[in-house]
């Protein structure tokens, strides 16, 4: 689906697109993944009902699943700045501003793309670019069952993951209002207007 949108932007003069979703239990392995990043056998994963895919984004291994809000910005960087670092920085900015809504001090960790709170990682980023049009994107742990991250070395690092519900000590409902907050931050950081679609 992201690629269909990308082709429309590439060949059909369509404007930028932003796709929000949640995934079923899935492990994805980005291009830089090492074999040692997966800590469980593929057979065991299958038994647990966790899908496992190699994908063409940057970065290493991660987990996606229910309770995690995933955003795929299919943006034409020809119209912003043809700079991968600028784009990754801007995605971090979106996530940090989104988490500020909950009075949380989220921050960057120099040298480690993503967003962190108290040295634990709450959001991960991995992107791909064709003709300076982006796909793949970011994942923020809201109600994510963090146990599933124990099957992998997230992003190839020995780190702890956290989630919004763990930090706030309550369940977070992923509804349109919450998604709207994330969309608002995208609008602000990238100075975009929503011209069609909706939640």
């Amino acid at each position: 689906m992201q690629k269909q949108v990308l082709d429309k932007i590439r060949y059909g003069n369509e404007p930028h697109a932003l796709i929000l979703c949640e995934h079923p239990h899935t492990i994805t392995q980005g291009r830089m993944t090492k074999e040692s990043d997966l800590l469980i056998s593929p057979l065991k994963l299958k038994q647990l009902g966790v899908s496992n895919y190699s994908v063409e984004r940057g970065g290493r291994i991660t987990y996606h699943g229910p309770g995690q809000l995933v955003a795929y910005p299919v943006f034409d960087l020809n119209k912003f700045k043809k700079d991968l670092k600028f784009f990754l920085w801007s995605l971090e900015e979106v996530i940090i501003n989104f988490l500020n809504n909950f009075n949380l001090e989220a921050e960057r960790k120099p040298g480690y793309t993503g967003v962190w709170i108290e040295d634990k990682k709450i959001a991960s980023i991995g992107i791909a670019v064709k003709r300076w049009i982006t796909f793949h994107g970011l994942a923020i742990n809201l109600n994510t069952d963090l146990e599933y991250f124990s099957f992998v070395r997230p992003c190839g690092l020995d780190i702890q993951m956290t989630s919004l519900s763990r930090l706030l000590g309550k369940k977070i409902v992923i509804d349109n209002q919450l998604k709207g907050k994330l969309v608002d931050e995208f609008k602000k950081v990238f100075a975009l207007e929503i011209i069609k679609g909706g939640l």
Partner: protein
Amino acid sequence: MTKVVLPALGEGIVKASVTYWNFEVGDEVKEGEDLVELATDKATFNMPSPASGILKEKLKEEGDEVHVGDALAMIEEQ
């Protein structure tokens, strides 16, 4: 012959690794087709072919590091 050169990918990014060649030597490529995929730490970047022709030579293999401005391949225009 057209040299395929790694363009600037962003401020402070000096190198990338070749992750995937979409074509083999001897293949015909069209200008704008995704020729080769490169990766930095958190991003992959698909390099479009700068010309139409035959892919004559790959100067970098999958797994190799490439610096901005380095040549990746040679394309013989037809």
